């Protein structure tokens, strides 16, 4: 649930990057943090383990400028991807307005992507949200690995596995090089802002 402050004319929008462990959620945010430095007023917050894995979440506030006189503040979060952290994943999803599902295109991760998407569905239900209704964008990350000889899943197969029923906007991407990271972000921001406008009208 976005929060709208009528006095200061500020809208706060919560977007969560969700996906299996090591799929590149934090890497997405780190790229955004570097690339759009002039729109970000504070440091990225990362709560991670000694092994550099996300423990709780990463947080990056992002100024998008004004729409109809309202300042739009986008709050980007990631969840911890490791299987054992589902309780914390659920906490981060509280009040979410839009979700980016980051899938790992590596062949060996196929099942983990599907399992993670199913869990997202369940976790959203716990907050009476539906994966079919919430603004959602799917990103097939790590497509650059193909050049390095790592077997990756063809996009058509990923799409069939993850997006055949949802039919949401999706992108091939490489968070590490930045390919389609901004495109993914723009798409989820526009879907989310449109959905909030609809709810208000």
């Amino acid at each position: 649930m976005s929060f709208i402050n009528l006095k200061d004319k500020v809208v706060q929008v919560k977007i969560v990057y969700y996906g299996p462990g090591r799929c590149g959620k934090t890497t997405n945010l780190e790229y955004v943090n570097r690339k759009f430095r002039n729109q970000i007023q504070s440091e990225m917050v990362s709560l991670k383990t000694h092994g550099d894995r996300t423990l709780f979440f990463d947080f990056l506030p992002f100024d998008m400028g004004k729409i109809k006189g309202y300042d739009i503040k986008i709050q980007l979060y990631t969840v911890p991807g490791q299987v054992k952290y589902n309780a914390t994943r659920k906490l981060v999803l509280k009040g979410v307005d839009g979700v980016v599902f980051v899938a790992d295109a590596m062949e060996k991760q196929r099942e983990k992507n599907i399992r993670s998407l199913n869990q997202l569905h369940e976790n959203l239900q716990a907050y009476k949200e539906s994966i079919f209704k919430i603004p959602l964008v799917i990103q097939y990350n790590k497509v650059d690995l193909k050049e390095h000889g790592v077997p990756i899943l063809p996009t058509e197969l990923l799409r069939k596995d993850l997006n055949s029923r949802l039919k949401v906007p999706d992108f091939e991407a490489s968070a590490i090089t930045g390919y389609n990271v901004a495109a993914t972000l723009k798409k989820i921001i526009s879907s989310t802002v449109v959905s909030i406008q609809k709810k208000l009208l």
Partner: protein
Amino acid sequence: MNYGIVSQEQLEQIDTILSEKLIKLGVDCVIIIDMAGNIITAKDNGESKYDVYSFAALAAGNFATVDAMAKLVGEAEFSLLFHKGQESNIHFSKIDDELLLISMFGTEISLGFLRLNVVEAIEQIRVVWGANNG
């Protein structure tokens, strides 16, 4: 559930309560957030420059974690939290199921005195909040 939007009038009333009850007392910064990590309002003494957006995200996460721990030990909730430092301290108190009041203060205020004022502020805020959202 209509906590997502709050009127200008409500916010002004809440800001007045925070100023009268807490900022005047010597509290450096007071923030009201919701459990999703959004800032409802923030007031400071004009000197402190905290990154309130990051703070709100972390505070909501912190409170949610403690709430989950409460359930594990069979408590319905731990409705307040206190973090003590050398120079500054943070006090968290639940306003209702969705809202949290956070006060950041230095060594010149005693915890007991702060708590008394927080309780009074929360009672007044509930009245303002309940008027349009009840």
